[in-house]
Structures are given as C-alpha cells and as structure tokens.
C-alpha cells in the first residue's frame, strides 16, 4: 500500500468537496484500486505519487479524473437522459428544417470519456433518421489519450452495457465480441475521436450545431469556465445548441447565452450580437 493517511484524507476531502460523496475510512483499498490506472496513465508508479503530484501542481483535469474514478462505477448511457430526449424531440427537427439536404450536421461531445455519450447520440440519430451516417458527423474529444482510444475502439464490457443502455438498442447496435460488446461499424463511422484540452486554445473544428459539454465546467474556477464557454461558442453555429450537465449553467458565468427549457432539460443558445 502506497497511500498514507494524509494522502487518503486529501482524496476524501477532494471527493467530498466536488461531489458531496463521503468516502468512509477503510476505503483506502478502493482509492488504490480506482486511482492506480490514472497514476499509470500519467507515468507515475503508484497512487501516493499521483496524489503528491496533483497536490503540488493542481490541475482541473486530473481532479476531474480522480473524482470521476471514485464517484462513478461505470458511465451510464441514458441516465440523465433528458439532454438526449431533447436532441430528438426538439433540436434535431429544428436543425433539419433550417439546413439544406446536403449540409452535414456537426455534433461535438466535448468530454467523451470512454465513448458512451457520442455513441448514445449516434444511436439516437441512426434510429431517428435513415441517412444519419451521411447527414451527421460526431466529433468526440477528451483530454485523455486512453479515453480517446477507448472511444475509437467502441468496445464495452458487460458491466458497462448494463448501465442504462436499453436492451433493444444493445442488440440493434452492438455485437458480442467475446466478453465485450462492439459498437456497429456504421456508428463508429459517424464518430471521430481525438484528444483535446478544453482549458487551452482549441484546435480548428466545427462549426458545431450541437455541443454536449456535460460535467466539465464544475471542475474549473470562474475565469476558466468563462474562457471555456467563450472558446466553445466561437466553434458553434449562431443557431446552435449547447447542453451542460444537470448541475451546471451559464447563468452568472457568461451572459452571452440564452437558456431554453426543453422538457425536463435545458439547452443554451448563443445570444445574437455577442
């Protein structure tokens, strides 16, 4: 065991501050098991050194990885499904009526993790429109190369597909590959994955009709939140739609967005003239 009491307490406080989840004493083992892959991906030998590294050089992305690793077992597909319902009920019909038949819709999943979000979008679109694979392009980005590679591979474990993916969609869009499930080639063709750090100047992409930027802003301070929203808006079409996490908003952060309620969810649209 490499985790000192001080390091464990620091992790507990971090997780409690960011997620309100309490890690009971005695969960050192869990912290070790969940954080070791992050340490390894950063080239560090153990969790103790990961904690030391993040404490001395705080980074919102590392913080996000640590909190996510400790607060979620597996990313769920349609849990908090309202932003996806909004896509097919409102956003897509509105976009399709305003775009020519040859225009390709551009959708950005801006913190795609292991790929559940971009493939959820791809499945919904393929089920909703016959020519989705030629009408829509989905850009999936994440800071972590490992997550980008997982998204590209489009392979999910049994435990992952058990998390909020409707069984009908599982059998329609996946095939079993040994103990895993492989996303269909047509969905994989719709999704292009690449590395991208939202806290730095963004590469040339878009312009996007729809952006999913969920559960990212909560990890950043106000100036960085403002900078990210400004950079994202620069890559969006003027009539585009932005979806944030359920606990996130542009209100009080960046007043160049208009909040639109769609069903049980909210979207944000660039205000004209900003």
């Amino acid at each position: 065991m490499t985790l000192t009491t001080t390091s464990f307490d620091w992790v507990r406080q971090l997780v409690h501050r960011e997620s309100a989840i309490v890690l009971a004493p005695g969960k050192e083992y869990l912290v070790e098991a969940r954080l070791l892959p992050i340490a390894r991906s950063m080239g560090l030998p153990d969790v103790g050194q990961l904690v030391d590294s993040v404490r001395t050089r705080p980074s919102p992305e590392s913080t996000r990885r640590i909190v996510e690793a400790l607060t979620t077992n597996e990313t769920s597909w349609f849990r908090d499904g309202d932003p996806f319902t909004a896509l097919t009920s409102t956003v897509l019909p509105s976009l399709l009526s305003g775009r020519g038949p040859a225009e390709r819709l551009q959708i950005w999943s801006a913190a795609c993790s292991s790929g559940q979000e971009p493939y959820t979008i791809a499945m919904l679109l393929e089920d909703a429109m016959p020519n989705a694979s030629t009408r829509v392009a989905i850009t999936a980005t994440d800071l972590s190369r490992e997550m980008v590679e997982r998204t590209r591979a489009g392979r999910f474990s049994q435990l992952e597909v058990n998390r909020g993916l409707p069984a009908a969609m599982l059998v329609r869009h996946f095939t079993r590959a040994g103990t895993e499930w492989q996303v269909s080639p047509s969905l994989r063709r719709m999704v292009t994955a690449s590395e991208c750090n939202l806290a730095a100047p963004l590469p040339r992409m878009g312009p996007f009709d729809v952006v999913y930027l969920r559960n990212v802003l909560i990890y950043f301070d106000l100036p960085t939140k403002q900078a990210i929203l400004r950079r994202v808006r620069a890559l969006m079409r003027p009539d585009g739609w932005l979806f944030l996490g359920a606990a996130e908003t542009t209100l009080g952060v960046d007043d160049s967005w208009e909040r639109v309620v769609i069903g049980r969810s909210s979207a944000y649209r660039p205000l004209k003239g900003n």
Partner: protein
Amino acid sequence: MRALVIDDSRAMRRIVSSALEGFGYETRQAGHGREALDVLQEGYAPDLCTIDWNMPVMDGLQFVSAVRANPAWRALTLMMVTSESEQGQIVRALAAGAHEYVIKPFTADALRDKLALLGMLPEEAVL
C-alpha cells in the same frame, strides 16, 4: 410500487428484492415461473416482474410468454435479470414481450438505471 422477484436462487431473490426495496418497492418472491403465475392468479398485482431465465418447472421465457398471452396482465412491466447473455437470447426475450434485460452480474446502480429508463423508479413517479 410493487414488484414480484422471480428467481430460483434464494440469494439472488434477496439481492434483487433488497435493491428494489431500496428504491421504494414492496416486493414478493417466487422460485420459478409457475409459482409466479400462481401469485398473479391469486390476485397479487405488481407493477414489475424481475425474471431469471433458467429455473426449474417453468423458465423465465415461458413465464414471459404466459403473461403476454393474458390481456389482464398487459400493464405489467417485465424485466429479465439473468446470466443468459448471448445476443440471440436477448433478442428472443424481447420478442417474447420482455421490456428490459439486465445481465447478471449487475450492480444495484444498473437495476436503478434500467428502471429509470422504463419510468419505473418510485421516487421519480412521485415527482
């Protein structure tokens, strides 16, 4: 909301029941499909059945077909909870009339997610 938990393993019945009770369900249990049909015929009217596939006397797939053949039970939501996980079997269960399919092993979170998809989480129904 009420659930009937159908599994030949007592341990699995306890695990599924305690997860469902945690979400606010009242539960009853049956050890195989025939026993579950008897419970329904007695007049117990659950909102949800969780159904194992391989059981003695009457298996889960036969139970699903029997429930679907009776219009009186049309409102019942049927969710397979089984270690059977060949793609073809999931297709067969859905074709027979199961609404959802949870593959064992599962976590309580996975059950909760599936119930949320079905709009079958009591706490959400209250909202």
